[in-house]
């Protein structure tokens, strides 16, 4: 199965399809609210649309990354455990393919929502270049997906899997708090989308590399 087919298959599942629909609906709503109407000509829609898009993509990447990372190993579930094809056990080749497909589906969501960023950027004419405006959400998606994988695994090992639904929004909020208190654009995709940040790019690139290393294909061991 090609990566495109795997991504399409993953994106076609209910959870991601609903996520994509919700993301597009949110962007449509924000675009409608921030686009100038009536006699106004001041267009500052990009300053809302771009950070929101980057943050929602990062939030989704963290959530799906944590979900995949927290998957139990086969030996944790006992010999009678029969995994579903959609949720292969952690560490197995099928799980790695699942990681790759989920990341590809998330990046496809980034491409599909790109016109909102380009449109608002073109009309708002911000000082930040279009290149960074388009790159930052992809960096955030890859980086937060890698962070999610690690976070999911840690909570599974620590036996705190029940806390994942709380941990995901807490991490996104904590990243914003960290950037505000340090005055840097290191962790939060909201602030990073507005101003180019080499620190953010480096951190997200490192986490993306972690995700790609996790998703690397390995030879299947014969049963």
């Amino acid at each position: 199965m090609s990566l495109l087919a795997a991504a399409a298959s993953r994106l076609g599942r209910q959870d991601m399809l609903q996520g994509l629909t919700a993301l597009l609906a949110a962007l449509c709503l924000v675009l409608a609210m921030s686009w100038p109407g009536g006699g106004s000509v001041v267009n500052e829609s990009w300053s809302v649309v771009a950070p929101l898009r980057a943050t929602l993509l990062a939030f989704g990447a963290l959530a799906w990354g944590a979900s995949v990372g927290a998957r139990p190993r086969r030996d944790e579930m006992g010999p009678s455990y029969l995994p579903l094809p959609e949720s292969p056990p952690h560490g197995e080749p099928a799980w790695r393919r699942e990681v790759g497909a989920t990341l590809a589906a998330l990046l496809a969501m980034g491409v599909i929502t790109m016109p909102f960023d380009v449109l608002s950027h073109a009309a708002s004419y911000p000082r930040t270049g279009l290149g960074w405006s388009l790159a930052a959400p992809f960096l955030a998606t890859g980086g937060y997906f890698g962070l999610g994988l690690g976070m999911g695994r840690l909570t599974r090992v620590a036996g705190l899997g029940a806390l994942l639904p709380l941990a995901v929004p807490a991490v996104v909020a904590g990243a914003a708090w960290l950037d505000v208190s340090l005055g840097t654009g290191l962790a939060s995709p909201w602030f990073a989308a507005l101003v180019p940040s080499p620190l953010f790019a480096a951190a997200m690139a490192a986490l993306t590399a972690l995700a790609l290393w996790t998703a690397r294909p390995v030879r299947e061991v014969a049963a």
Partner: protein
Amino acid sequence: MNPVRRFASRLAALPLAVALAALAFAQAPPLVELELGLGGNVVVGAWNPLRVVARDVPLGSRVEVTFDQGTLRSGEVPFRLQLPVSGGPGLSVVERTVYVAPFASVTWALVGDGAVVASGSIPGRGQDSRPLDVVLSRRSGSYAAAFGESARVVDVSAAQLPLAPEAYDGVRSVVVDGTAAAPRLEAVAAAAAGGAVVVVHGEMPASHAELRLLAAGPVMPLGAGAVLAVSGSPGDVARAVESFAASRPARSELIAAAAARPLVTPPAPLRQQVVVAAAVAFSVLAVTATRLFGAPGLASALLLAVLVSGAAWLYARPTEPEVVGSRTLALVGGELAHATLLEERYTLPATTVRVAGPARPLDARSYVVDEGGLRVDLPGWRSVVLVAAPRVVDAQLGFEDGSIVNRGATPLTDVLVVGLGPQGDLAPGARARPTSGEDGPPHEAYASLLPLLPAGTVVALSGCEVGCTVWLAPSLVAAGDWEEM
């Protein structure tokens, strides 16, 4: 005298010589002097001469003057002036004309070798917006009495008169009666062209003979001002000045009226309904294709997203990041005109607007002026109206032998005489006698100015393809000139 005693007496005089030298050194002028305004008299709301004289300061020094234009409500609104001082042994002189808005305080410092060499301040409590009546006379007291207590009569020497016309922005009159040293002809011409009424009072001695070049008649308009030849008492001088000043529109009011209407039209965005409808349609299509058609559907959605992005960039992007509009207000007097350029900069991205040459923002805001010109920071989708320092140019509009004349190389359009009505256009070199015309809506470039202009004022436009120049010749056409038509 015994040589030993002579030596002893000289030795005794040595401490006295040292003490005298120390006293002389202690009485040496200060290292740096800063004078703002003509003779130190600042007129707020006007361009004022600034002069810095520094002695033996380090090479490559800089003088930094900070005008805090803020109020209790607005907080600090600084205008920073940063100018290089050549420095080195001897005197270094820096001269500049700066616009002084109402201020809370003015502080200055001369910085050289990384340290403050000298500093000082001017408190804001004594600021005065009344224009100056400058007197070059040994009998300045009699003029001060004639002008009355409400006037600001200042007594300066001829050498103190600046040569730049914009430095006379805050001067109402310059009175010369021939009893003091003669002023330079350039300074007198600059004063008149810059808007002051130059009064040549009484008969001039031989040392002032060249003033006759300017005072050939009783009233010689020159730029925004005029040269008046007045005989009689100082009271007659005061009355002549007040009468002439009252017949002229206030330049600050003209500038405010000219800038009252926007000089630029910002780019119109795409309609909100169109944008929202397109966004919803794209979203539905992308989700449907991904859900129903698997990998081909996803590939189509991705391709569609790229195409829609390209189209959005092409249609929604304004062509230029900055829109600039300008208008020049030129007050005609004789063969010269006093031109003030108004320029509105509307920027889409946040930026720093830079303008070469002396200029100021129309409204109170923070800005910096250095040797490169003016710098003002603007957030995105905001504009600033900049007012350049007035300059003297050749007048394109004139009045000769009862006819309005176009002396320039470009057409004068929308010519109008206040009180008479529109006069039509004037080709280069053409002339036309004023006639009563049908009233119609005036051109928008000068419509807001008309209520401020006295009857008989001729208004005309030129160069509107780039930025209109509004030529104003106050009271150029006398009432008799059109009643005879």
